[in-house]
């Protein structure tokens, strides 16, 4: 009664050529992506070490007569950009996220805000650059300056902060809120004491992601923060603040200049790239650590 014809035999392997081809393509593509990434990192590391020195890290580049190659000025400028951008964007972004999740009723306004946030995240940085160069000049009479650059970047990172914070707030268990409201706590009190503390990691994540974007940004900065790479001398406390009204090229902008001039300066472009890459790596690791902490807390 057993029908063991060849067609039905369990052990007859059917070779499916299309399966094999597709599988090979899948493995090939993944291998290419990994090899490419590793190759890029190693290449930058090796090339970057050529021009790397303590002098490179501890002195600024002079725009004329191009005889010193360093990035200290740009590192300081980048730090300024990061700090100011976060100071402006984080409160607004977190506030917007709180509005969207806690106050807004599901209606037209929420939809518009969510749509515009999406739109903001899709606008390319060069448009931000163009916009920033006219807008902040028209409104605040700001010429090329760190402040104009930071304000431009603030708009750019806003969607990241809003969305990441929103996600974090949504994960705060309903029970916590009900507990607070059940005790008669007013809304802001509830947000301050219950919601914000439990999504602080989410806000931290959004800040870390934003730092990554700020450090890596270039096109939005060339026309807003400019390209200067000199060190400002901090003679008085006031200088720390007035610096924001001066031009200041970020690391990425300096890299672009080195690369554009080419020739012997190419190696300094790679050294700058190495500095950026290490920064990005550190940022990635920080983001991982925060995510790990969140997971540990949840479980």
């Amino acid at each position, binding site marked *: 009664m*057993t*029908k*063991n014809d060849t067609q*039905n*035999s*369990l*052990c*007859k*392997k*059917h070779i499916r050529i299309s399966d094999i081809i597709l599988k090979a393509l899948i493995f090939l593509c993944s291998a290419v992506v990994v090899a490419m990434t590793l190759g890029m990192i190693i290449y930058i590391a090796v090339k970057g070490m050529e021009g790397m020195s303590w002098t490179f890290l501890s002195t600024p580049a002079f725009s004329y007569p191009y005889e010193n190659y360093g990035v200290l000025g740009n590192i300081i400028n980048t730090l300024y950009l990061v700090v100011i951008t976060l100071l402006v964007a984080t409160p607004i972004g977190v506030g917007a996220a709180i509005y969207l999740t806690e106050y807004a009723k599901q209606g037209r306004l929420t939809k518009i805000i969510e749509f515009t946030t999406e739109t903001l995240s899709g606008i390319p940085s060069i448009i931000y650059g163009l916009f920033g160069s006219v807008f902040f000049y028209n409104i605040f009479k700001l010429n090329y300056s760190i402040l104009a650059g930071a304000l431009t970047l603030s708009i750019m990172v806003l969607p990241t902060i809003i969305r990441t914070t929103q996600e974090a707030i949504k994960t705060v268990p309903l029970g916590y809120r009900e507990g607070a409201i059940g005790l008669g706590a007013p809304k802001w009190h509830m947000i301050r004491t219950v919601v914000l503390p439990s999504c602080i990691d989410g806000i931290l994540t959004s800040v870390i992601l934003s730092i990554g974007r700020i450090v890596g940004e270039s096109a939005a900065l060339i026309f807003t923060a400019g390209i200067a790479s000199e060190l400002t001398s901090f003679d008085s406390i006031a200088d720390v603040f007035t610096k924001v009204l001066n031009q200041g090229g970020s690391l990425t902008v300096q890299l672009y200049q080195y690369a554009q001039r080419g020739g012997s300066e190419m190696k300094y472009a790679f050294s700058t790239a190495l500095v950026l890459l290490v920064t990005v790596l550190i940022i990635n690791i920080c983001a991982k650590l925060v995510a790990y902490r969140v997971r540990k807390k949840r479980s």
Partner: protein
Amino acid sequence: MENENVKISTKNVNLYYGENHALKDINLDIKTNRITAFIGPSGCGKSTYLKSLNRMNDLVPGCRITGSFLLDGEDIYADGVDTNVLRRRIGMVFQKPNPFPMSIYDNVAYGPRVHGIKSKAKLDRIVEESLIGAAVFDEVKDRLHKSALSLSGGQQQRVCIARAIAVQPEVILMDEPTSALDPVSTLKIEELMNTIKDKYTVAIVTHNMQQAARISDYTAFFLVGEMVEYGKTDDIFSRPKDKRTEDYITGRFG
């Protein structure tokens, strides 16, 4: 027992999920063109056993199986077995209706297409026959190219049965096929099972003892990974040999 052929024979089956010993020494023969029901409380291993028959447990990481499984005398777990051929011969209907997010036609034609049938006329015929076989053709014939997700749960499940029939399996495994459905749909599927057993060997896991009593020819009772009793459905329900079986079917636990 009567002069019946054994379709699937399993001997000394043990199954582990990691450290968990989920099936213990199961010996059970499934008879050709009969409906065999597996009953027992949740977590007793009946679904696990069912899924080991077409090696769906292979997909579960950390799952280890020993013992012998023979389909028409051929070892299901032998080296070199093509699980795709195995699953074409032993089809499966799942607990939750799970039609693909495609049209009804494409759902039913999926299996035949995967197994290399390309002719439109042939596919048309298979789809129609399968839907008729699953007693759902009249309800969906005017909207074969509409999404299967637009159907009711009961219709979806019958489309899933049609989809399983379309690859012309020899055995159909059903894992609580009606537990997510309303009573009317359940009744339709029970009637359907009675008509398809002439062509197919059916093994069904059910939570519902009345269902097992109504539709099956043989019943196996599982309890915490062991098969307590196996025999003709009438015998199991009217003259259980084991105390535990009796307690279960009289509703004393479970």
